[in-house]
């Protein structure tokens, strides 16, 4: 079997699993379905590992599978570009996907949509692989939209819940806003480069660096700036950057396994991957990089604040994902692409771990997600607890866990950068460290430490479900109220009793994810950031080469830790953990007092900076008002009422007049003829 066939097999196997289970799942039964999907993804993982090794030996590949369409001289293809960047992504995707597949067996055990769920997540794995393996913009867009579709289907997986189907529509449309920019970027690439093939485009990029286009008036814009910003708008939606981030917190309406897989580890990082892949273009536009930096920094800092006040365990993790995506975006903006991919990888491990741990807690709590109703779970579920500790330490950036290395690298890169906006970015990512540590340990302490605040009889949850049901009837339309504490579906009947550790299908993925969360940092930082690992797949211009500057100060992972321990971010992380410990374990009354003291700020955070309300009023509401106006006034009154039915009436009147004229009396006709003749003659002589 040739390597090309192996490449093809990687996405094809999960696709086959998805199609078979999707079509025949109910007939195959649960066990057959989940085994099919798990084996398919495991095969994809094994193949990815094999290909990764092959590529690391220097066997990159770039070639087409088939021609999708040809028009004139333009040839659009489906094809693969297999290089270190691709294989890294393939490994991360298939590994996390495999973990999530296994985990799902436990998490979704009681769900009537069990086989459908497996079909979807396998389909997702296929789509995501097609996205990262693409060698051209067309297939990138295919994968881009396909992962969006699966995300839509999975957020709305529990389709009877009004909040879920509100959230999935919102997610799809927000992503379409991003696609809007993305398609324009692709269109510009085609218009000026004449091809959509990566290598050809990148080869021509240098020659077009000085090209300008006229957008309005006399202002000349650098072509590459416009292209990169358009493409980045796509990334802003997919990777949930301000102001297109609004869909991600609501996406927590979906089942927890997909929150881990899609809305933390893989799909939301597609935008990061895309920009890294486009590094030869972005490198040529200072303005675009600056734009990326500022957006990323804003997301990193301001979304972190929101994580502090969330009480839904999944939403804490969701906001932390937003913030971490901001970190990656900052790394892209300061041209530290490999640092972005490095953080993407470590984040995929520890964030998937945190989500799955949160899911494990949710199972134990009988689908209660409110942190205020947890506490003291440490002793009931030790595996979940310890893996969550590892995940939180990694997220907070405590050495020697993986997050420390990747996050510190980004902070350093922002420090060394000279791109406009790097100062703001540096401040944001440093300040973000404290907040990140604070909210992650707040979550840990509230869930696992302190008093047991849950009601062991499991009562009270019924009221909650009933309230949610009432809500389901109440809100319809695009503007349904967004929810705080989500609740899992009716299918999950709680069983009561004290919380207990989750079954092995849940805990084994936790452990397997905890391992790379610990070691992936020190093990891979040197080759990925400072070595030739990525080869030609990432291009950095000399004046942006912050990582090369950092390389001068690189003396091994241990020295990096030593240096880190002496620097500000580390102490901020420690301070954040300490503050969380004080606020939630030592003096639990303090947060309430602070909340009151910080009244307006708290209100602002509680309303998530009013993004949702503005969007509902301006965009969703505005579009409907516009539609009503155009429909009623434009179509019904003006076109139909005046012109169409008006002409019909005119014809009616005219024929009524005609009827009077056709009286049948000869003298009427004769008289009319004489008058007419007279009028004509006078007009003719007098003109």
């Amino acid at each position: 079997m040739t390597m090309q066939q192996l490449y093809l097999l990687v996405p094809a196997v999960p696709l086959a699993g998805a199609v078979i289970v999707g079509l025949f799942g109910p007939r195959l039964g649960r066990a057959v379905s989940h085994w099919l999907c798990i084996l398919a993804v495991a095969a994809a993982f094994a193949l990815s590992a094999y290909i990764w090794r092959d590529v690391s030996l220097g066997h990159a590949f770039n070639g087409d599978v088939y021609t999708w369409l040809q028009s004139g001289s333009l040839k659009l293809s489906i094809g693969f570009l297999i290089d270190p960047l691709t294989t890294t992504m393939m490994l991360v995707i298939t590994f996390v996907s495999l973990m999530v597949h296994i985990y799902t067996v436990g998490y979704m055990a009681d769900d009537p949509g069990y086989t459908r769920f497996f079909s979807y997540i396998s389909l997702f794995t296929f789509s995501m692989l097609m996205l990262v393996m693409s060698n051209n913009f067309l297939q990138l867009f295919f994968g881009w939209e396909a992962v969006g579709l699966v995300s839509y289907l999975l957020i709305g997986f529990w389709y009877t819940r009004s909040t879920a189907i509100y959230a999935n529509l919102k997610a799809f449309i927000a992503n379409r806003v991003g696609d809007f920019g993305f398609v324009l970027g692709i269109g510009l690439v085609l218009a000026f480069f004449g091809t959509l093939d990566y290598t050809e485009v990148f080869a021509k990029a240098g020659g077009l660096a000085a090209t300008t286009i006229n957008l309005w008036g006399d202002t000349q814009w650098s072509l590459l700036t416009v292209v990169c910003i358009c493409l980045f708008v796509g990334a802003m939606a997919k990777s949930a950057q301000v102001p297109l981030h609004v869909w991600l917190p609501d996406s927590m309406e979906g089942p927890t396994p997909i929150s881990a897989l899609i809305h933390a580890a893989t799909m939301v990082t597609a935008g990061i991957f895309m920009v890294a892949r486009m590094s030869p273009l972005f490198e040529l536009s200072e303005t675009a990089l600056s734009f990326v930096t500022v957006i990323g920094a804003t997301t990193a800092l301001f979304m972190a604040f929101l994580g502090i006040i969330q009480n839904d365990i999944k939403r804490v993790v969701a906001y932390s994902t937003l913030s971490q995506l901001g970190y990656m975006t900052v790394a892209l903006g300061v041209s530290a692409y490999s640092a972005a991919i490095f953080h993407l990888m470590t984040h995929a491990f520890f964030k998937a771990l945190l989500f799955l741990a949160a899911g494990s807690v949710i199972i134990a709590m009988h689908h209660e997600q409110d942190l205020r109703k947890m506490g003291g779970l440490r002793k009931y579920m030790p595996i979940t607890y310890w893996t969550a500790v590892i995940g939180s330490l990694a997220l907070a950036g405590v050495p020697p866990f993986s997050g420390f290395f990747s996050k510190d690298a980004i902070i350093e890169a922002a420090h060394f950068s000279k791109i406009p906006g790097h100062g703001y970015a540096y401040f944001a990512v440093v300040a973000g460290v404290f907040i990140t540590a604070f909210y992650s340990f707040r979550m840990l302490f509230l869930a696992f430490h302190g008093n047991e605040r849950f009601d062991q009889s499991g009562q009270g949850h019924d009221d909650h479900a009933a309230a949610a049901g009432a809500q389901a009837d109440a809100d319809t339309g695009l503007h349904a109220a967004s929810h705080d504490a989500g609740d899992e579906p009716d299918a999950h009947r709680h069983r009561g009793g004290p919380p207990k550790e989750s079954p092995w299908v849940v805990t084994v993925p936790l452990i397997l994810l905890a391992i790379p969360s610990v070691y992936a940092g020190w093990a891979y930082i040197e080759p990925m950031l400072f070595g030739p690992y990525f080869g030609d797949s990432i291009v950095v211009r000399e004046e942006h080469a912050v990582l090369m500057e950092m390389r001068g100060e690189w003396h091994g992972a241990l020295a990096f830790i030593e240096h880190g321990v002496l620097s500000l971010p580390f102490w901020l992380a420690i301070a954040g953990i300490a503050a969380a410990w004080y606020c939630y374990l030592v003096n639990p009354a303090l947060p309430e007092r602070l909340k009151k003291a910080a009244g307006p700020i708290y209100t602002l955070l509680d309303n998530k900076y009013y993004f949702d309300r503005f969007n509902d009023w301006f965009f969703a509401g505005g579009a409907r008002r516009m539609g009503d106006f155009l429909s009623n006034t434009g179509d019904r009154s003006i076109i139909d009422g005046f012109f169409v039915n008006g002409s019909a009436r005119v014809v009616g009147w005219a024929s009524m007049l005609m009827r009077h004229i056709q009286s049948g009396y000869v003298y009427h006709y004769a008289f009319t003829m004489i008058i007419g003749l007279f009028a004509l003659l006078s007009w003719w002589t007098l003109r």
Partner: protein
Amino acid sequence: MISMPYLSLAVWLPIIAGLAVLAVGRDRDAGAARWIALLGALVGFLVTLPLWLHFDAGTSAMQFVERTEWVPRFDLHYYLGVDGISMLFVLLNSLMTVFVVWAGWEVVQTRVAQYMGAFLIQSGLINGAFCALDGILFYMFFEAMLIPMYIIIGVWGGPNRVYAAVKFFLYTLVGSLLMLVALIYLYTVSETFSILDWYQVPLSMKVQLLLFVAFFLAFAVKVPMWPVHTWLPDAHVEAPTGGSVILAAITLKIGAYGFVRFILPIVPDASRYLSGFVITLSLIAVIYIGFVALVQGDMKKLIAYSSISHMGFVTLGFFLFSQLGVEGGLVQMISHGFVSAAMFLCVGVMYDRMHSRQIADYGGVVNTMPKFAAFMMLFAMANSGLPATSGFVGEFLVILAAVKVNFWLGLLAAVTLILGAAYTLWMYKRVIFGAIANDRVRSLIDLDRREFWMLAALAALVIAMGVWPKPIVDVMHASVANLLAHVAQSKL
């Protein structure tokens, strides 16, 4: 090369089958009428297959040409032929006829023979319009096909069917009257009714502009373009499911086809001169109609408006005068044939059970009709232009072509990415998702075998065309290149 008169078969077989069905007549023999209709539609489709299989994609010349004298006094010919532009529409139309017969199988219980007969005859007439290369022959087919549709809406339509049928008939008839004048004028200057010969006739700018207006009115009403679109939502709402399918999938395409068969090559200078005007109307159709679609409470109306918006992409693509744009427009026409047909069939499936098209009467259909919901999800996604469905291909190509001409043009066209998803998926959410809204939804029964395979066949077509559109686009290349050469060449 090929001796069989495939085009004549494609035109006359359905008409003969339709007459045979009519002859069976009475409702007592409904079963026989159905089977004859199905047989006629199937054979009618099969005879069009050789058109594709034996098609020579290397040439832009007309193929399968049949030409005999008809009225020598006026040099009228029975002149048929297809090129890479028209051939696919003959296939599409013949295929859709099979779907319509299939869709009406058990649903139509009154005057079955007349219903089936009307569709078959209409199918033959439409094929005639796509194949005709003689101006008057085209005009006769073009006008004659109004009659079956008028009857279909007027007899099997909804409560307000008479208004809708008359509106449909008058709107399109008035639009096309000036076209007859234009055809006769072209005869007087060229002494022939051969459309292909008209491509070579030199015309002054003033004459070109007048001819443009005459043709444009006829075809713009058919497409329909904003602001002469208001007949379509009414016609769709009142038409029976089969009528909507043919109306959306095929009849609209005749209008767009007229642009590439008549306007662009016959009056190229006027077309170039007025391209900004047509592009503006197209973009209004895309955006304005997108907003209007968003607020419709009637599913059929919503899909009708969505059709107008999608057809805006077709005219937009044509008037960009690039290979990518024209091919994008043509692909969009074919894809829209599948997708709009599927959407109307989906509404038909629900209407047959609930006798309502109002979104507000539904909610939570997925709970009782999961298979149906899955199919409709696919078609809704295709309607919003998701990649790997046919709906993506045309839109994508046209947007790319538009950006190439002007960034802002592309930007305005790309608004459909957002609006298309918003109106389609918002409807889907309110109708299909959610908790069961009422007892009538609770008692719904999922697809029966006939409905299942009907939708499955369309789903396969939609996906196949999205995953590999190359075979469809390849047959167009030579003809589109030839068309663009005509457009580029001044006739002044």
